[in-house]
C-alpha cells in the first residue's frame, strides 16, 4: 500500500498540476448555497407557515444538497456507475422516508383517534 501509485490521472482537465488553483466552480457552488440559504431566511420571516412554505423549504434544501454532493464531493465528475450506485439507494431512501411518515401517521391517527 505504501508504494501504491494512483492509477487514475487526477489531471482530468479540471485540475492543473502545479498550476494555478481552479476555484471558479467551487465559488459558484458556494454562491448558490449562500443565496438559497438567504432566500430561506427571507421566507421564514415573510411567509406564514403552511404546507406550501414547507414544500418550498424542502425543495430548496434538495437544491443545496445537489451543490454540495455534485461540486464539493465531486460526484458530478465521477463515472456514471459510481453516480448511480450512490444516487439509486438515496432515491430509495427518500421514498422510504416519505412512505414511513405517511403510513406511520395514518396508523397513529387510526390508533389515537379511534375512541374520540
Amino acid at each position, binding site marked *: 500500500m505504501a508504494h501504491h501509485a494512483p492509477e487514475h490521472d487526477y489531471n482530468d482537465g479540471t*485540475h492543473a498540476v502545479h498550476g494555478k488553483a481552479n476555484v471558479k466552480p467551487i465559488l459558484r457552488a458556494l454562491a448558490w448555497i449562500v443565496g438559497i440559504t438567504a432566500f430561506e*431566511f427571507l421566507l421564514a420571516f415573510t411567509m406564514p407557515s403552511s404546507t406550501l412554505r414547507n414544500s418550498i*423549504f424542502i425543495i430548496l*434544501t434538495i437544491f443545496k444538497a445537489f451543490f454540495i454532493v455534485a461540486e464539493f464531493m465531486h460526484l458530478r465528475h465521477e463515472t456514471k*456507475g459510481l453516480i448511480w450506485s450512490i444516487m439509486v439507494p438515496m432515491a430509495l431512501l427518500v421514498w422510504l*422516508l416519505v412512505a414511513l411518515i405517511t403510513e406511520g401517521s395514518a396508523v*397513529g391517527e387510526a390508533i389515537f383517534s379511534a375512541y374520540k
Partner: protein
Amino acid sequence: MANPTTTLQNSASYEAPRSGTWDGGNEPFKASYGKLMMWFFLLSDAFTFAAFLTTYGMVRHRHLAYTGTAEAFKFSQAYWPIPEKVFNSFPGLHGMDIPLAFVALMTMILIVSSVTMVLAVEAGHRMDKDDVQKWLLWTLLFGAMFLGCQAWEWTHFITGSEHGLKMADGSTVFGANLQVNEYGPVLFADLFFFITGFHGTHVFSGLCLLTYAFIATTNGTFHKRGHYEMIEKIGLYWHFVDLVWVFVFTFFYLI
C-alpha cells in the same frame, strides 16, 4: 456439489481471458478502494440520519401544531413550538429576541469550512503542500468554531429562560433535558439533543480526522506517497457532515 467432469467440459468457453470492464484488473469506477468505501460508508451513515429524520417527522405529526401568529406565541407543552421563538438568542445579547440569527451564523461557518476543505483537496491535486496545510488549518478553525457555537447553543437550551414555564401542577420548569422541557413537548427536546448531538459527534470525529491530516501533511507523509488522496477521503466525510447539517437546519429550524 457440481460434477467435476461437467465443469471441465463447460470450462472450454472460459479459456480465453475476458477483459471487460467488470472482469477484474482495473477500476470500473475510476476511484480507489478507499474512496469507494468512504462513499459507501457515507451512504450507510445517511441511513442513520434518515432514521432520525423519520422519527422526527412522525413524532412531530403526533403533536398538535401551533396555529396562531408568531407574535402571540406562548410556550406550552400542549403543542409543538415554532423554531423562531425557541432559537432566538445570540451570545452577548442577553434578553433580546433575535430569531434564528445564531443558527444562521452556525450554518455559514459550516458551509465556509466545507469550501476551505474543497480548496485543500484542490491544492492536494496540485501537490501544493503549503496550500493544503493552509486550507486544512482554516477548515479546522471553522469546524472548531461550529462545535463551540453548538456547545453554547446547548448550554443555553439546557439552562433555559429566567421565567421558565409554569406546569399544570404549579411547578416551574427551567430549560430542557431528556425529562422536562420548558419550550414544548418533552420529545421536542429529546429529538433536539439526539439529532444535533449526533451531528455534533460527526463534526467532532471530522475534526479528529482533520487534525491527523494536518499532522501527516506537515510531516510530508502524503507528499512522499505521491498523492493527497487521504485529504480527498476526509474531505468527502467533512462535506457529508455539512450535507447533514443542511437537512437538520431545514427540518429543525425552518419548518
